[in-house]
């Protein structure tokens, strides 16, 4: 497999620039994966990609901050893939917009069959309007006996209505793309960088992403114990997301899942998270900083050396990185020996858990490492 990332210039991108970027490859790419800013030039860029590579699989999603090689950018990123073996390929399944409703069982089953027949799959999901967790739960039930590796990210909020995905020149709101890879070895690294910062407690009442009680007391009281400074509550939820909730078990498949806070005291006494928290989960607060995140990223080992990489890193990490939002991707790029890499800051990450597939993460960086299988 060969791969290359292209820095877009910002605004509408002329097809010639795209063609020129892959001239030395000798042929159009088999797949072009684009993470584009939600600007007015989106459709022009998609049209340029069509003009440049009319026969290639072109897809992607909107994102505020994208990665291109070692850099974080807001002008858009395109990663091109060429398979060495003509029998190897990428496919895509579209789950169209449902506007918050879960896709039909038949649709989920069809997608699951395609994923099960692949060597691995990438999911690109509208983070706000597509019911990702419900969809993942349905997929998990079907894929329980044949779990291929699945990873992906929820596109971060880019507008009031969410982030869109696109296939060719079709722009789809409230949708999900499932990219199936055939003849490709896919490996997933979960990059954390947080340390435990509190004792472990038990969630005594929770429902979906809403935690009502911890250790029998309102969840807000539990948070107030830590986040009250000089008699006042620190700004929530942004402060809390620098101290993510870490699920420590007791179910093994939930161990190591982090949760980012979405809302505090709404409903009253409760805390709302981006991912689900279950009654009985053992939880603690974690702590981290820019140094710990970058340091963890730099410790990644590239063995075997991948031919391409895609990084889904949580926007919560972006907040923590602050001015050095590119430091993490740079460290990863360096650790992987300069492998062609793209990606974006996400609003929820999908990756296997220690005891299962299709875990829903927050505040985590999911690194997908790709290498074409031998012919």
């Amino acid at each position: 497999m060969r791969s290359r990332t292209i820095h877009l210039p910002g605004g509408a991108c002329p097809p010639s620039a795209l063609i020129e970027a892959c001239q030395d490859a000798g042929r159009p790419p088999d797949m072009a994966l684009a993470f584009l800013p939600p600007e007015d030039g989106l459709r022009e860029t998609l049209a340029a990609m069509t003009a440049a590579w009319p026969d290639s699989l072109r897809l992607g999603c909107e994102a505020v901050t994208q990665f291109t090689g070692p850099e974080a950018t807001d002008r858009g990123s395109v990663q091109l893939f060429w398979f060495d073996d003509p029998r190897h390929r990428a496919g895509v399944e579209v789950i169209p917009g449902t506007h918050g409703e879960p896709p039909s069982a038949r649709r989920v089953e069809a997608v699951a069959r395609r994923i099960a027949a692949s060597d691995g799959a990438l999911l690109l999901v509208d983070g706000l309007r597509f019911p990702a967790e419900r969809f993942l739960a349905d997929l998990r039930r079907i894929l329980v006996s044949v779990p291929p590796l699945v990873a992906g990210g929820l596109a971060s909020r880019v507008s009031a209505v969410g982030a869109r995905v696109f296939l060719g020149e079709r722009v789809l709101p409230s949708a999900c793309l499932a990219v199936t890879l055939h003849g490709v070895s896919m490996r997933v690294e979960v990059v954390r960088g947080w340390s435990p910062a509190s004792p472990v407690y038990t969630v005594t009442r929770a429902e979906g992403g809403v935690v009502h009680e911890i250790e029998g007391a309102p969840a807000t009281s539990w948070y107030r114990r830590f986040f009250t400074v000089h008699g006042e509550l620190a700004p929530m939820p942004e402060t809390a997301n620098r101290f993510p909730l870490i699920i420590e078990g007791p179910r093994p498949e939930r161990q190591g899942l982090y949760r980012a806070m979405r809302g505090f005291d709404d409903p009253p006494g409760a805390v709302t998270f981006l991912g689900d928290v279950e009654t009985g989960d053992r939880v603690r607060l974690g702590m981290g900083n820019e140094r710990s995140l970058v340091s963890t990223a730099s410790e990644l080992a590239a063995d075997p050396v991948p031919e391409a990489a895609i990084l889904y890193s949580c926007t919560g990490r972006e907040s923590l990185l602050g001015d050095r939002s590119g430091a993490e991707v740079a460290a990863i790029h360096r650790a992987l020996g300069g492998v062609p890499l793209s990606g974006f800051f996400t609003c929820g990450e999908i990756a296997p858990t220690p005891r299962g597939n299709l875990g829903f993460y927050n505040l985590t960086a999911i690194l997908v490492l790709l290498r074409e299988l031998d012919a």
Partner: protein
Amino acid sequence: VTTNPLELDGAILRNLLAETTRAYEAQMAELHAEKELAQITLASIGDGVLATNARGVVKYLNPVAEKLTGWERAEAIGAPLTAVFRLAGQSGEPEEVGEPLRCCLEEGKGFRLNERITLERQDGRRYAVEGSCAPIRASNGRIIGAVLVFQDVSDQRLMALQLAHQATHDELTGLLNRQAFDGHLQRALDEARSLATTHALCYLDLDQFKVVNDTCGHLAGDELLCRVTSLLQESMGHADLVARLGGDEFAVLLARCTLEEARRRVGEFHQALRRFRFTWRDKTFAVGASIGLVPITREFRTVTHLLSAADHACYAAKDKGRNRIQVYQEDDATFVRRHGEMSWVVRIQRTLEEDRFRLFSQQIQPLSPEARPGLYFEVLLRMVEEDGRIHLPADFLRAAERYGLMRAIDRWVIRETLRTLRVQPAPFLDRLRLCAINLSAVSLGDEELYDFLDGELAASGVPADRLCFEITETAAVENLVQARRLMDRLAERGVCFSLDDFGTGMSSYAYLKELPVSFLKIDGRFVKDVVTDPLDRAMVESINQVGHVIGLRTVAEGVSSVAVVERLKAIGVDFAQGNWISPPRPLNAPAVESPSSPGEGGRKGSGEEGRGDEGLSLPGDIEPPPL
């Protein structure tokens, strides 16, 4: 709230640290409390507990462990477990705990202390202990030490030993009991087979034990058994095993000795026993023993076979006059006869089950004009085989006595006699004066016989005063106390007794005063030649006179001619019985005609010597023969 994120995060981290510290302290307090609880628990339990580190060095011991090992905690902690916990085996040899402890610490294999092990205290005292050792693992599975839990089981072990001793020994004499002795015999037999080693088995039965028991009581009997035990133990070698098999029966396994050597040793004991006199209060007894001696050879297949041979030999010693040693020889005539007796046992049992015994009667004729007129007769027993052959009691009574069948036979005779009398026409019972039934020694000692007879009399309606039980002197003496008790009770009901075969046994006139008998039956051996032999005549006159002096009526048995009858009349004998007077006939057909055959006829119901065959007549009227 500060807007500086660093300050804010710092403050939150301090909160987190404080909370973590509080939780840690609470956890430590909880752990401390748990440790206290564990230590109090360990100190309170009744078991000894010793804990070591991974190198087998003692790190903890509870008060019970301190007491049992004799080590104080201060000196034990830091010492190797092998020094603190010193074990000894059954014979006192040191038993090393180090190797199993090493396995426990290195390989995680727990172990139990060996059975019958003892713990040697620091001061040398020993405790029987039981216990086990298990590795102590950290949360990561690593072995960090071992814990040894043990209990003082000295009392239980002593009790178990006592129970085991009780299970294998006779309580009175302390000798091995039958069950334990059988085990030793089996081993001796195995050895004889595999190694061709010769052992010998001595089986002995005291001759005078019952006399001592009955005349002086059980305490005296027990004392006699203990004295004989001492004599046996003094006479036999250390390797010989002496056992009490029950009652007055003893056995000795003479280990690794030839028959000659065994005979010599047993002979020495027998001599010692003959010299021995047992004194109880004012009475002194000479004690004899009938001894059977068997060489234990590979020819014996089983212990049962071996014991049976010894029993046969002992029986033969008795048969030959008691108080002697008899060596077992398989082809000896005595043993052959014993085997023959045993074959009778099955036939007797089958005859009882199939109701093939038959009752006969032989008339007893009054000779004195003072005698009340009426019917007097003795009930006689016959055994009818499946093929119709008829056996006299002489054929089978010895076997029945030997193998415990007399009780059943006596009861069958009593029940059947009363049943037969009941169904006779009314004039029969009116004229019946005496129906004599023979009663064995076993039945005389049977405490349930009275109730049985009481029930049968009530069921039959036969007046008790028409019954007379014939007993032998030997039978009465064998169980004198019980026999006397039964006879007194039956006498109160009106039943009378006759002393049978007088003149042939001990013929102790003293017993005539002791026993509540009404008739004295003069043995036919003296009667037969009473006309021609002056000695027999003198015997008959003597017995008759003594009987009359103490108020008994006399009956002469075996009367074979009119001349004998006349002589008996002249002597003054009260009754006569014999084939010349009336041959035996089926009980429901007592003789009606005159004596027709000069030959001998009857066999007594269940205990007398036979005198030949007799004719079997059909039922008829019941009248005494005219004389």
